[in-house]
């Protein structure tokens, strides 16, 4: 089923400048696999060569970080919004 995937500025050049694209899958792993199959330029940026999430990439399902849900096995369904955001030095630090 298709879900909306929102892209950070740094990944948009790999998707012809789009800020959001559609991808298929029932889990985050499947959605990211479909995404990188369509936009190969993102492959090394989002997932590492062994297929895990890149250290400096945070992926959210409806605002929840999937690292603290079921990681790449986190389920997604219709109307969910998946967001990819870079890790930043946060804070009023």
């Amino acid at each position, binding site marked *: 089923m298709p879900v909306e995937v929102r892209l950070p500025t740094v990944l948009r050049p790999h998707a012809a400048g789009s800020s959001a694209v559609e991808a298929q899958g029932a889990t985050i792993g499947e959605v990211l696999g479909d995404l990188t199959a369509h936009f190969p330029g993102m492959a090394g940026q989002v997932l590492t060569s062994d297929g895990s999430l890149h250290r*400096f990439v945070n992926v959210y399902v409806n*605002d929840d970080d999937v690292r*603290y849900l079921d990681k790449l096995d986190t389920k997604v369904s219709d109307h969910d919004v998946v967001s990819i955001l870079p890790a930043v030095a*946060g*804070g009023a*630090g």
Partner: protein
Amino acid sequence: MGARRSVLDLIGNTPMVEVSELSPAPGVRILAKLEGRNPGGSVKDRIALSMVEEAEKDGTLSPGQTLLEPSSGNTGIGLAMVARVKGYPVKIVMPANVSIERRQLLAVWGAEIIESPASEGSNGAVRMAQRMAGEHPEYAFLYQYGNPGNPRAHYEGTGPEIWRDCPEVTHFVAGLGTSGTLLGVGRYLKERNPDLQVWAVEPPSGEMVDGLRNLDDGYIPPIFSDWGGPELLDRKAVIGPRDSIWWTRRLAEVGIFCGISSGCAMAGAVRCALAIGEGVIVTVFPDDGWKYLSTDAWTGDLDAVVERAKHIMYF
């Protein structure tokens, strides 16, 4: 409480207040620790004092030595206050797009501000400070993102205070930032009650990081890995500026005048309350509202305020 010898003795022991009237679930209490009551106005007074005193002890900071620190605001302000009292000059590397009040407060305590590009956000300030520290070994670089004195201040201060005032806590919710509060308080509370859950909230990195050229320029605070952050946190959620500002306004309705990152923490506590249905949530409000008056956060048109918040660092 008797008179204190120094303003630095007023850091910590902040009050906790019930905000359960804003809880969306009747079975969930929400309590907030008001860190704006610290003398420099924020939770960061705790880590400024802890990092400076640790550096004095281990000899990395000698009398009269200049302190250098990347900060989007509160740590710089806390450090400037502590350094003023103790006699150290301070240089703060800060993104150009922070609220005017933060600059004014730094000026009050005589800190020198060095601007980093707004488009690179906090990551840019960290990189610039690291470069300067490399070029100037004579500066003391306490580096809040990598300094164990940061989480330790919360492990030894904020955490025990929360446990003393609210031992029935089941969930701790706080903003991520450097991760010091979550790591220190979270570790302390989980040692007392292994069933306790720690939930993190953070603002979207969104337009703050348009200057990021590559995801390899991303950043995870070293203390987050060193203190077992990935294992300690149970949930992490992004809270957008609209929710943060809306909850900052709701808090004002119950008399609590706090900064926008407190609205973000409250929004996180509300999400947690909806998810758990029953429990006792403690959250941390990092500062008061004074530094954000120029943003019109309480009185301006919500859409306009939200739009501006996307371009100004408020967390």
